[in-house]
């Protein structure tokens, strides 16, 4: 039954099934796939039929206890089936293994037979080998003698060849000398020298040696001659030196000679360079300066399009611009200097270190000589370069200079590499630094002169309309000062002037910054020097350029107030106003903008303390304040002058009854209006106290009807002269003290208040110095009413105008011989008619 089952199983079996069967067998024998003992934890269970601790008794009991009969029956069939399949599997395995065993046994038997045959053959081989060894020994024994003879003969041959070389040496040297193949001669001689030295006690060798010496002396002579002549190229020269060194010439002398020779050539380079600078006579510098100015102003307008040629063209001698000059210096001088250094080092230092010369301290000596040599020449070169740089004064295009400096600096790095301990590169950097600071200074000057020039332009722009207006006023018979007229016509262009002025200054600063920024560009070799990273940015650019310029602006503005202070007329008031606004703008925004721009562009790291923005702002504000105060003063004085002249020149006692407002008052109102317009163009309105609904009339009627009447009444009653003062004093008790020439705020109303205060106070003081007749007083009444009608709108507090005009009328009433005030209605009629 097993066989049948097995057969059917084997036939239908797929590998998967076989595998499974193997697995089960393995499990049974306690092996897993890898041949290791299974490590399942459940294997401890005695009821696990597949586990190693399986207890059939326990399992049976368990089954019997737990399962029903049907289940037991099923279990039984299942178990029987499994047992059968296991049995058949086992039979298959046994059969397979049996076959393999049989074939293995066969193979082993076959191998045994083969080895026996091989053993025999090996024995035969060893016997043959022994015979061969024997023969070989015998042959070498017979050939021994001949071999030694041949060796000796070949030794003699080489010796003979050497001797032949020696004998031929003088002739060969002579030939070399003739052909000027010095190098070959020297190398030949070197090869023979030791031998000759050694065998010089033999007369024949002595002869040869003497001959050689004579020839070599001649050769050395010739070499020296050649060296001295110096016409040959550097390469020839170095070859020459090399040979001489090999001929035991004293190295120090050679160094000196080499260097002096090199010096002569380098000096010719330097002279070439100097020739380019030298022809600077005084006349040409003059011409140069004027031409440069024109070029710089041209450059100022549009810094980009100014070609490098124009900036350096002016003088005939500097037709080579600085870049060309530096280029030439680099190509001629620096490169040949480098060549000299390399060949020198090659000859005297590197070479000597290898040979026997090293012991004589030659490298140190040679190095020292080289350093002094280089320092000396470099110093002259630097002085030339500096002279050339100093001539570079046009500020038009900076890139040329920067490029020249860069090249100059870059080429020196080569020297630095060749000559590590040298001070040359540092000196070069210093020159660059000096040039840069000088440049910054020049830019500051250029900025300052630009600023002054633009101010002159503004002045002219302000003056041009004034001329026409002044002419018109003269033609019209106006006998007043020309000053206020500027205020009348300038307004049309004031804001444009301001904006164009500030824009052009800002542009100029920006372009200067851009130019200066070239010094710190990444592709420039010296830009990563600590100076250019730190101090140049903070001290150089920020402090001595930008901050200095801003300070200059403030200071020059202040000077306008001081120098013009006494005359009042030398600076047009409009310019004062404009500058004050400019300074104020600087305070509010421009300064911080410029500084931020600078800091950003130059990545300024403040190692050293720098001027803070607030200080500059405070300075600008102070300047603005001063300018505005001065403006108020100047304008106030112009109006004051008119009022004063009008009061002083009139005979107030014998004047006619007023029919009109005096022309001066109209002029005052006109000028005040034009000043108001002018200021309004640049300054904001400002705060004013609320107006009463009918300011122009109401206030006037108040003082003329109530208070003034009371005053006159008092004057008429001789018994109570105190009342006048009492009333006036009581009034003053309640009004604040007025500071006439006081500081104003930055707005239109405050400025106008200041100007009107000054004017009216002057009016008051002048009135008090005069004596009035009846009509004089009435004229003043009319004038004051007219002023009241028009001036209240300009000031912050109309009570101020009211108060001052009140004082004027009051004072003139006091100074009146016959105080009979005019009817209010008549005054009004006159004023409205005027």
């Amino acid at each position, binding site marked *: 039954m097993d066989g049948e089952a097995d057969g059917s199983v084997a036939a239908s079996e797929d590998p998967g099934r076989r595998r499974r069967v193997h697995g089960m067998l393995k499990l049974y024998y306690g092996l897993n796939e890898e041949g290791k003992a299974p490590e399942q934890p459940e294997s401890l269970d005695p009821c696990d039929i597949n586990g190693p601790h399986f207890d059939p008794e326990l399992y049976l009991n368990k089954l019997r206890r737990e399962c029903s009969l049907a289940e037991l029956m099923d279990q039984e069939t299942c178990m029987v089936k499994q047992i059968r399949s296991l049995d058949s599997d086992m039979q298959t395995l046994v059969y397979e293994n049996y076959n393999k065993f049989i074939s293995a046994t066969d193979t082993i038997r076959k191998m045994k037979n083969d080895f026996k045959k091989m053993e025999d053959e090996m024995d035969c081989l060893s016997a043959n080998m022994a015979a061969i060894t024997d023969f070989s020994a015998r042959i070498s024994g017979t050939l021994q003698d001949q071999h030694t003879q041949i060796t000796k003969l070949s030794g003699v041959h080489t010796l003979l060849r050497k001797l032949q070389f020696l004998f031929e040496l003088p002739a060969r040297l002579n030939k070399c000398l003739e052909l000027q193949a010095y190098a070959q001669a020297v190398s030949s001689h070197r090869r023979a020298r030791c031998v000759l030295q050694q065998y010089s006690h033999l007369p024949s060798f002595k002869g040869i040696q003497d001959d050689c010496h004579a020839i070599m002396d001649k050769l050395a002579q010739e070499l020296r001659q050649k060296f001295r002549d110096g016409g040959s190229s550097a390469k020839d020269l170095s070859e020459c030196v090399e040979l001489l060194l090999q001929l035991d010439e004293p190295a120090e002398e050679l160094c000196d000679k080499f260097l002096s020779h090199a010096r002569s050539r380098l000096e010719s380079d330097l002279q070439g360079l100097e020739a380019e600078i030298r022809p600077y006579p005084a006349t040409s510098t003059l011409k140069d300066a004027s031409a440069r100015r024109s070029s710089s102003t041209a450059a100022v307008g549009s810094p980009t399009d100014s070609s490098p040629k124009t900036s350096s063209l002016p003088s005939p001698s500097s037709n080579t611009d600085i870049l060309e000059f530096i280029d030439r210096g680099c190509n001629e001088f620096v490169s040949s200097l480098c060549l000299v250094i390399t060949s020198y080092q090659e000859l005297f230092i590197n070479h000597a270190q290898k040979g026997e010369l090293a012991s004589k301290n030659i490298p140190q000596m040679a190095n020292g000589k080289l350093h002094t040599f280089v320092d000396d020449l470099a110093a002259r070169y630097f002085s030339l370069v500096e002279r050339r740089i100093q001539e570079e004064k046009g500020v038009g295009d900076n890139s040329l200079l920067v490029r020249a400096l860069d090249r100059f600096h870059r080429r020196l790095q080569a020297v630095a590499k060749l000559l590590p301990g040298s001070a040359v590169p540092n000196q070069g950097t210093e020159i660059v630094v000096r040039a840069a600071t000088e440049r910054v200074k020049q830019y500051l000057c250029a900025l300052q002169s630009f600023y002054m020039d633009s101010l002159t332009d503004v002045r002219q722009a302000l003056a041009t309309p004034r001329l026409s207006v002044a002419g018109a006023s003269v033609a019209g018979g106006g006998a007043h000062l020309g000053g206020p007229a500027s205020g009348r016509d300038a307004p049309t262009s004031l804001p444009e002037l301001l904006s164009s002025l500030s824009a052009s200054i800002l542009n100029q600063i920006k372009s200067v910054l851009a130019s200066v920024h070239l010094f710190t560009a990444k592709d420039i070799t010296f830009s990563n020097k600590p100076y250019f990273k730190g101090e140049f940015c903070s001290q150089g650019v920020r402090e001595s350029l930008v901050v200095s310029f801003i300070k200059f602006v403030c200071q020059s503005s202040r000077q306008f107030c001081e120098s013009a202070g006494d005359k009042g007329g030398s600076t047009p008031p409009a310019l004062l106003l404009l500058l004050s606004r400019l300074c104020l703008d600087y305070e509010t925004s421009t300064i911080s903008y410029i500084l931020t721009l600078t800091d950003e562009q130059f990545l300024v790291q403040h190692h050293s303390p720098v001027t803070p923005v607030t200080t500059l702002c405070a300075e600008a504000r102070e300047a603005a304040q001063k300018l505005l105060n001065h403006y108020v003063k100047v304008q106030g004085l112009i109006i004051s002058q008119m009022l004063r002249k009008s009061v002083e020149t009139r005979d107030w006692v014998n004047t006619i009854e007023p029919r009109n407002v005096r022309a001066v008052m109209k002029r005052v109102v006109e000028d005040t209006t034009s000043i108001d317009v002018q200021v309004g163009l640049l300054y904001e309105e400002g705060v004013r106290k609320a107006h009463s609904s009918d300011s122009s009339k109401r206030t006037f009627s108040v003082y003329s009807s109530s208070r003034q009447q009371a005053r006159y009444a008092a004057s008429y009653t001789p018994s109570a002269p105190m009342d006048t003062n009492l009333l006036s004093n009581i009034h003053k008790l309640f009004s604040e*003290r007025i500071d006439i020439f006081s500081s104003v705020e930055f707005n239109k109303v405050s400025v106008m208040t200041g100007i009107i205060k000054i004017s009216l106070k002057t009016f008051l003081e002048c009135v008090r110095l005069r004596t009035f007749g009846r009509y004089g007083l009435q004229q003043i009444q009319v004038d004051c009413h007219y002023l009241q009608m028009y001036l209240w709108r300009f000031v912050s507090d109309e009570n101020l105008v009211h108060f001052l005009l009140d004082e004027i009328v009051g004072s003139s009433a006091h100074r009146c011989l016959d105080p009979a005030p005019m009817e209010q209605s008549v005054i009004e009629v006159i004023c409205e008619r005027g």
Partner: protein
Amino acid sequence: MEDDAPVIYGLEFQARALTAQTAETDAIRFLVGTQSLKFDNQIHIIDFDDENNIINKNVLLHQAGEIWHIGASPADKAVLTTCYNKTSDSRLVSCAAVWRMPSDWETGSHESPDDSAHNPQTLELLCRLDDSAHGNAACVLWEPMGDGKRVISLADNNALLWDLQESSTQATVSSTATLEGKGQLKFTSGKWSPHHNCSQLATANDTCIRGWDLRTMSQIYCIENAHGQLVRDLDFNPNRQYYLASCGDDCKVKFWDVRNVQEPVKTLEEHSHWVWSVRYNHSHDQLVLTASSDSRLILSNMVSISSEPFGHLVDDEELSEGEENHQEDKGKEPLKDSVVSTYEEHEDSVYAAEWSSADPWLFASLSYDGRLVINRVPRALKYRILL
């Protein structure tokens, strides 16, 4: 140390003219001239009782006209000059005259103070300083420290030197100087220098200050454009012969060394309106008083240009050793020019300020509304100067 409060005295009329009674060295006495077009003008004699802080006033009538300038004789207490305006036929004439106070003005007032207000005595006219040929008088200057025999009057563009004879009852012009130039030139103010044997005069016209030699009546120096605007007043430093102070409508007070007239030695800009009067203290010339139409009076301590720039060094030597160190420290302290004090008792323009001739630490100021204020130098400063 509290300072005494200022003493205020009110006049009934407006007033511009103020002077100390120069010849009086015991009592603190000021003379004030009033300006009134309608009433008789008066000269108020203000006596200040320093111990009791009381003011005594006496009034004398000056019927000739309103007083623009007043000057007291340095020799005779009772003699004074005034410049006044007179109206006649609706024309204004400026005159100058020498007056004598009635001898019994003092006794009268003490006996019946109430009466004096109603029946004031009248000034006695000694002589007129009028010369029809030479315009309107602006001010009259007495010869400083002189015997009261010589005065100068400034009239329009003339400076007239008068000799007073027969106890001032007769005046004759001894010499004149005339300002020549374009336009209508007019002297606004002047000062007779106490130095050089009283042979120099300084005058102001418009923006210029001129110096004159009285012996030849010729100009010796001229400070063109001394001030931006009109020059209002001048004063000589009593101790430094070349030093001169001026003030004007540009709100500035300037100090000049007349040997170098290009630049002022020093400029003060403390006032906010025109400065009308500048006065050196008679004995301590670092103290300078200025009066302005901004209603303020300013006392400045101009140490750097005074005749005693380091205080009294002589006194230090006499001090005992213990105090010496302390004093040295104090002496080395650099004293700076400074405003000592600003007096704001006035409410109208202050046109005049004067130091007392009797007490060097006391001064008076007069504002247009007729208010006279008497003040003292702060005690702290006084002791600092004295010690």
